[in-house]
């Protein structure tokens, strides 16, 4: 009995570690400690699972220890090597692995039928469904973020209808399996597995670019829910608690990201960004965007009172966060007030820009959120847009025909001057033309963001 007490205590402490750890994440000062608490909780839980007395257990510890060793080395090495700019990919792939793990557990359960009750079978099927979608959906999200596939190449015509048919088909097969119960046919089960995996791919396929933060949050929530469902299979409360917490976190982030774009989740899922927008490119064809030279840009920045930097995904692609901080330091040394405006959906995952700037040692009180930044913009001398596009697009406010109409954006044109760093005039990832580029106050600085900022740094040093 004593051993049972300690096992249960370890699981309980594990759950407390998860909750307490997430609670400490509410402040940057305590966040690191929180992560360690959650990690210790996980460690306790794993030890408990290893030594818990099981009836008729063969243990097979060799297999388990081997698996843990392989997983720990692979996870540890990739965690250490990964670039901060590649964090969305990393989170996606890890997320997919969690889903895959739940799929494996559900499949074994359904083949072995160790709990052939209606409830047990239903839960295992649910685990398989959610885990399968999370698995392949995350893999595709990873491939997209890594630049391995492009949205247009994997999106079929009438993709939304195909998705709907796939989803209904998958659910029908699931219900058939449930009705077959303990005598379910292996062929049909494999069909179900195949369908969930295909649906995972297919549902992420048309979603891309600026909608990526929503998808990643949603997949995160799916993985959590599949872990929780797997916890029900094994009657393990800790798996249930951990899974639900992750599910809650993913759901909250999904909702926040949707709110930041002023769109419903359904609209994001079926709405393919940039596909529509009949009036998007209208009337901008013959306008010319004015350029600024490196030298002029540096002088303007040097003699201004206040500068607001607006980072976007381009900052991550160009790995320009450190040189950005150099510009910041040189300007601050000359008494210029430098702030950063962070749009909630800038980048490819929630909080993406914050992490990059943290890596470059930008103190977080200098980062303004959407509302604070918009309050400060009318009193700002120069806005420097580094690789952001849709989040500074005035069409969102004044062009009802634009696909991003209604999305809250950073009103950078309210500042005295704007400089946009961009590689070329091509419209952004979402394929939407940006009238800001032709605005009177705006000047373009063409070139790779890291390269351009590097040149600005050397100019500033010469002033």
């Amino acid at each position, binding site marked *: 009995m004593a051993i049972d007490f300690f096992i249960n205590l370890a699981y309980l402490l594990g759950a407390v570690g998860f*909750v307490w750890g*997430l*609670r400490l*994440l509410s402040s*940057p*000062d305590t*966040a*690191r400690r929180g*992560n360690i608490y*959650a*990690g210790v909780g*996980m460690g306790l*839980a*794993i030890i408990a699972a290893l030594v818990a007395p099981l009836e008729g257990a063969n243990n*097979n510890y060799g*297999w388990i220890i081997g*698996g*843990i060793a*392989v*997983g720990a080395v*692979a*996870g*540890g090495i990739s*965690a*250490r090597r990964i670039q*901060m700019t590649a*964090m969305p990919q*990393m*989170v996606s792939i*890890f997320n997919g692995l*969690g889903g895959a*793990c*739940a799929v494996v*557990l559900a499949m074994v359960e359904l083949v072995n039928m160790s709990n052939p009750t209606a409830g047990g079978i239903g839960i295992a099927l649910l685990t398989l469904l959610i885990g399968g979608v999370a698995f392949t959906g995350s893999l595709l999200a990873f491939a997209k973020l890594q630049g391995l596939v492009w949205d247009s190449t994997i999106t079929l015509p009438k993709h939304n209808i195909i998705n709907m048919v796939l989803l209904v088909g998958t659910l029908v097969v699931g219900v058939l399996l449930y009705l077959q119960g303990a005598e379910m046919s292996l062929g049909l089960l494999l069909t179900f597995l195949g369908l969930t995996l295909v649906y995972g791919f297919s549902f992420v396929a048309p979603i891309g670019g600026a909608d990526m933060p929503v998808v990643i949050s949603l997949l995160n929530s799916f993985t959590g829910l*599949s*872990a929780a469902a*797997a*916890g029900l299979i094994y009657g*393990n*409360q800790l798996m*249930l608690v*951990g*899974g*639900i*917490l*992750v599910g809650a976190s*993913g*759901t*909250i982030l999904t909702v926040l990201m949707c709110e930041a774009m002023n769109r419903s989740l359904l609209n994001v899922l079926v709405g393919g960004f940039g596909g529509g927008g009949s009036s998007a490119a209208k009337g901008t064809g013959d306008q010319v965007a004015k350029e600024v030279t490196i030298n002029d840009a540096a002088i303007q920045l040097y003699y201004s009172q206040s500068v607001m930097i607006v980072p976007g995904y381009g900052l991550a692609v160009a790995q320009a966060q450190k040189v950005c901080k150099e510009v910041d330091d040189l300007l601050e040394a000359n008494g210029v007030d430098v702030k950063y405006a962070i749009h*909630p959906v800038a980048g490819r*995952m*929630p*909080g*993406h820009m914050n*992490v990059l700037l*943290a890596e470059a*040692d*930008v103190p*977080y009180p200098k*980062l303004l959120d959407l509302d604070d930044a918009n309050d400060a913009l009318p009193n700002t001398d120069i806005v420097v847009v580094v690789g952001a596009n849709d989040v500074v697009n005035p069409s969102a406010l004044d062009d009802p025909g634009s696909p991003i109409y209604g999305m809250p954006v950073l009103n950078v044109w309210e500042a005295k001057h704007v400089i946009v760093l961009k590689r070329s005039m091509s419209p952004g990832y979402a394929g939407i033309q940006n009238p800001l580029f032709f605005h009177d106050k705006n000047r373009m600085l063409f070139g790779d963001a890291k390269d351009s900022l590097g040149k600005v740094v050397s100019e500033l040093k010469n002033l």
Partner: protein
Amino acid sequence: MDTIYQFFNENLLLIYLLIFTIILGFEVISKVPTVLHTPLMSGANAISGVVIIGAILLIRQAEPDDYLTLSLGFLGVVLGMVNVAGGFAVTDRMLEMFKKKKAKK
């Protein structure tokens, strides 16, 4: 209907746990500031690696010559462990950067 009543009555504690965890999760996580959303995601990711417990229990209960279950369980442990180890390590790396700046100020 009777089966639903019965299920509810028999699993009352589990249902309480489920509902309170959902409420607690939403309360705790809605307090996380925007600055920390990426570490929140990767930390949550690590926590979802808790499925590894299921994989461990699966292997322990398998027959020593049931190589299919053992291999699948092994795969499950590897997948779960990558999630756990990688997730916590990368979150720690990120949070260290946030802390460093505070010290400098």
